[in-house]
């Protein structure tokens, strides 16, 4: 089938998911800052307003708290809203509807109600935007029960996880990354889902397991190639979902390699890598041949100066040196 080989950039894979799901399900609608314009969210929203009209593609005032709550309320009333926050930093205004309301709603009602909503949020960092315009807060949300969290790394997953998130009966935080928008990949034309909670082995290997998600998969891929030159055979896992976490995939890889490097482009302390490390220790401790290495941002706000940014953000070399360390 020709559709199998079609390539799309990550951003247009999202765009296609939105088009197809809005067409397939009248309960799906899009709400948030920038949905009528490429200004904020690139071409992910291309053509939506024109096709579905302002009743279902609703650009909003700068009111993150209420707008997010509006989405949650619509979900409780049976809709399938997608709420976009064009930067994760802005979501700090919207923590109450996400955490106190949406994530608890099903539990608090004893299963009598639920909030099937997608909180779509974008990590938008670099470019000297500094501390308030660079944050990657996945760990804060992964900490919260009742909230699923996904971070697709490829165009294929960007579409498949978006569709899965919309179809899920629970609130799902869908986190993408502006640095991924132009990356191309094969994207089937039809509607398909990537199961939430399932990771994938991007490359089989036996010497060391490297776990990465979202943009860090690209850097990890580069690192893997570089390490191959030195005959270091990495098994590369893309978790795709942070909650639920595909423990089994992780554990069986570590059982095989005995070594683990966890990469997450966010702060180290109480981050995703800490959780993965702790879980592996709890479950497959005796297979571990070396300490688990975490590759994270330093515990520091993002700087403006691009000289400092270069030092701050992670690259393949950071993964390479972590791998070498656990192999020593």
């Amino acid at each position, binding site marked *: 089938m020709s559709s199998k080989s079609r390539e799309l950039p990550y951003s247009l894979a999202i765009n296609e998911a939105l088009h197809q799901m809005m067409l397939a399900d009248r309960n799906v609608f899009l709400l948030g800052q920038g949905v009528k314009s490429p200004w904020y969210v690139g071409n992910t929203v291309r053509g939506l307003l024109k096709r579905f009209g302002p009743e279902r593609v*609703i650009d*909003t005032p700068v*009111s993150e708290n*209420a707008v997010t709550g509006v*989405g949650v*309320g619509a979900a409780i*009333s049976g809709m399938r809203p997608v709420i976009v926050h064009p930067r994760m930093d802005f979501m700090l205004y919207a923590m109450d509807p996400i955490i106190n309301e949406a994530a608890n709603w099903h539990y608090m009602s*004893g299963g009598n109600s639920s909030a099937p909503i997608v909180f779509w949020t974008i990590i938008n960092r670099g470019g000297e935007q500094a501390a308030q315009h660079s944050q990657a807060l996945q760990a804060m949300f992964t900490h919260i029960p009742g909230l699923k969290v996904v971070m697709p790394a490829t165009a294929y997953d960007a579409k498949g996880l978006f569709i899965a998130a919309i179809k899920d009966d629970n609130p799902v935080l869908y986190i993408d990354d502006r640095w991924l928008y132009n990356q191309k990949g094969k994207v089937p034309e039809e509607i398909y889902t990537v199961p939430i909670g399932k990771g994938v082995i991007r490359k089989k290997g036996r010497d060391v397991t490297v776990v990465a998600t979202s943009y860090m998969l690209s850097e990890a891929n580069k690192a893997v190639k570089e390490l191959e030159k030195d005959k270091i055979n990495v098994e590369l896992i893309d978790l795709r979902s942070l909650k639920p976490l595909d423990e089994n995939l992780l554990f069986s890889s570590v059982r095989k390699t005995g070594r683990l490097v966890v990469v997450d482009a966010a702060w180290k302390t109480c981050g995703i890598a800490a959780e993965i490390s702790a879980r592996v220790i709890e479950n497959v401790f005796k297979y571990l041949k070396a300490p688990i290495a975490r590759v994270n941002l330093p515990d520091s706000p993002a700087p403006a100066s691009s000289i400092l940014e270069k030092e701050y953000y992670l690259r393949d070399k950071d993964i390479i040196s972590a791998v070498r360390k656990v192999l020593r």
Partner: protein
Amino acid sequence: MINYSKNFLEELYRTMIKIRFCEESFVKPIVRGEIKCPVHLYSGQEAVAAGVSAALREKDYIFGTHRSHGHYLAKGGSLRELVAEIYGKETGCSKGRGGSMHVIVSKKGMLGAAPIVAGTISLAVGSALASKIRKEKKVTVSFFGDGAVGEGVLYESLNFAALKKLPVIFACENNFYSTHMPIRECRPRNDIFKIGIPFGITSFKIDGNNVLKVYEAVKRAVGICKKGGGPVFIEFITYRLRGHVGPDDNIQGAHTDIRSKEEIAKWKRKDPIIRLKRFFIKNRIFKKEDLEKIDRELKKEVENAHIFAKESPHPRKEELTNYVFKK
């Protein structure tokens, strides 16, 4: 006034007295420690819940707060399931997971309640948006207190609802207190309803202890919403006859109310149920005995609800994490 049907008036009375008996029935079990959950009694404010719901249809939506037993009952929620919830039982309306502050009966349009102050206001706007998108002509009522007027999300909600002309009624029950704070220590001005005006929202206040006035005002507001003229902001002036939580403002065992005796006495005279009774008798709509019969009936219903609740099973501890995710 007399062009209301007797049935309609009886229903209003039944709703109010049911709420009152229900609320008062919790006092002893709370004091005895049989009920552990924090309970915010609605006694004194019954005319608001009853009058609002009388003006709504079953398919219309409401969202509540920490003080929502009355909203729930008036919208048609089961008394037994309410009481069972407050006892933390599996038969409760939220299966004992939510307690008094999370009452819900979705099939009657009571879409939920939650104690984060102002936390459900934007949700109500969301359900109004949902019905607008679906062209269902449903109206949503968002209940909140004067305390919630301190939260910014209310203003964001007003703006968004007004911008999109959503069929939502902002129902502010001004009982003059937000926990231990009198309203004058919370706001420079009292006339809360005026906050709707800069957003171009039809906004007014009415006597929230007069159930017929409440009914009329909300009927009008529903009409405005259905014609696409929403939202509407209504400030209901009312008073809670009990403490903020539990029977009285029990601060460190003192069982004293922070409010003056005179103030409470004044409002007792404006008790919406006494007023309605007086109105019935004066206008010869119901006789004292008619009302007493209804009272007896509902007292019994409340007693039975307690029996039901007490006899109901607790949630099973194996099911602690059952509802974290919907499967």
